[in-house]
């Protein structure tokens, strides 16, 4: 069933991307795609790359504090706190952020009340920044959950030894813990970036204008023009982005077999 409902449409999209409307093989769809949506492709790449980087940093920080934190109360609070967005649907997260990051949303109002900004002079964060914030908010708990699980399973002995030799928490995290959980971290980040490349609701709801993410362009191409050629060419671009993320992972495995 997965074969008919996933692999077949996947093949269909590949074929459709490389043929013209009358069935001739060609690259015309790609030329048109880069001409019309080149900026959006770059925009999508930047959004996903920045979000993935931030998710990785936050997940490492959360996981690291859960393993190394000396204050039990703070560790318990953090453990309870960070998971909340895990199962929030993307569409609900988008609606939350649509109001939270708006001009008179809670974020601006709180910063304003703290005297940090002046709301009247702000425009809200509902543009590329909003998309990144939403992705990071939604995906960090997932990667942090995986990473902290892997960290908890590590041998405490080396960590204790480093403590005893006088290494600081940050140094232990970077030099001892992170290299050992790098495999899990990369898997989590690859899954997170594929998810971000698949989400349609967040870019539409957070930032309506151009430039936007290529998922929105695909939907537009199909709904407005029934132009499956260009939509599928964009689809192939998104497969390539996801594929290059996976390739980084595999290459890493080939050069450093021990790290996995």
């Amino acid at each position, binding site marked *: 069933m997965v074969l008919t*409902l996933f692999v077949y449409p996947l093949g269909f999209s590949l074929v459709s991307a490389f043929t013209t409307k009358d069935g001739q093989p060609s690259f015309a769809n790609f030329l048109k795609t880069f001409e019309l949506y080149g900026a959006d492709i770059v925009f999508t790449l930047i959004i996903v790359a920045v979000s993935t980087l931030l998710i990785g940093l936050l997940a490492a920080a959360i996981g690291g504090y859960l393993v190394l934190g000396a204050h039990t109360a703070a560790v318990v609070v953090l453990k309870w706190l960070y998971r909340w967005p895990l199962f929030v649907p993307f*569409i*609900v997260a988008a609606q939350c952020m649509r109001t939270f990051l708006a001009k008179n949303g*809670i974020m601006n109002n709180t910063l304003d009340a703290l005297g940090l900004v002046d709301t009247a002079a702000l425009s809200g964060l509902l543009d590329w920044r909003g998309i990144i914030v939403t992705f990071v908010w939604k995906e960090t708990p997932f990667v942090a959950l995986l990473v902290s*699980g892997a960290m908890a*399973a590590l041998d405490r002995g080396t960590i204790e030894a480093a403590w005893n030799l006088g290494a600081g928490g940050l140094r232990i995290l970077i030099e001892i813990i992170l290299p050992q959980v790098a495999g899990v971290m990369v898997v989590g980040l690859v899954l997170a970036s*594929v998810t971000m490349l698949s989400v349609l609701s967040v870019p*539409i709801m957070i930032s309506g204008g151009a430039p936007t993410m290529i998922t929105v362009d695909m939907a537009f191409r199909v709904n407005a023009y029934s132009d*499956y050629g260009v939509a599928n060419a964009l689809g192939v671009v998104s497969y390539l982005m996801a594929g290059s993320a996976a390739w980084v992972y595999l290459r890493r495995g080939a050069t450093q077999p021990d790290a996995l």
Partner: protein
Amino acid sequence: MRVMLGWLLRGGALGALAFAVFGPLANLALWAVAVQWYFPHKLPLSWGFRYWGEVFKPSSDALASLGTSILIAVITVVLSLSLAVPAGYALGRGRTPWRAALLLILLLPQAFPSVAVYVNIARIFYGAGLNGTILGVVLVHTVHGLVIAVWIAAAAFAAVDGELELAARNVGASPLRAVLTITVPLAAPGLMASAIFVFFESLDEFTGTYFVGVPDVTTLPLLMFTASLAGNYQIAAITALVLLVPSVGFMLVIERFLKAEMLARVG
């Protein structure tokens, strides 16, 4: 002094995190009970449950689409479990010759960005007359949730001691009877978790429904999306809360089933 500073820093960091985690949810909740709220007012001008009445009145679109969503989710659970239970049993017992290939096929939908695939599914379904039908949406939801459903089911079966099944066989039970009366009941909590997961995945699914469900099938996420883009933030917030409550409940339930050691057995 240093201790106090440390707690101040920790408190500040945790406070900022709490704000980042709960701020967006709080804003949603505010919109759900706001009647009138526009810029530059920091808080709603008038409060109340007027829009709740509108969403939940018997003739409303929201109730109809909630009904559609639940119907689709229930059928998706039945279809997914009828596939995930045998597949999970085979994988959990670990003697499948095609184990790697099966896992790879199930994992594929997670490895490719799905929008382009949904676009083409919609095109194929259109030819087959499945677009805009409940069955079409159910099929898309099933493929979407299947890998995790199989994964949880496999973990549940792997946790059941295989000797018990052998014992049942020794006292004369047929292979099918041994599985149905011994293994399946013992794996029931995990299978339940799998069913709950598929139910909520289906309830929350947006992208596939957006392409395949049009124009006749409106699920709750689609209704929320339309309301939000039309600027009906109160309606969007209330429907979002309806979708949010089960998700958070699920997070609390799933922790009992998805223990690290259980996941480790699937590998």
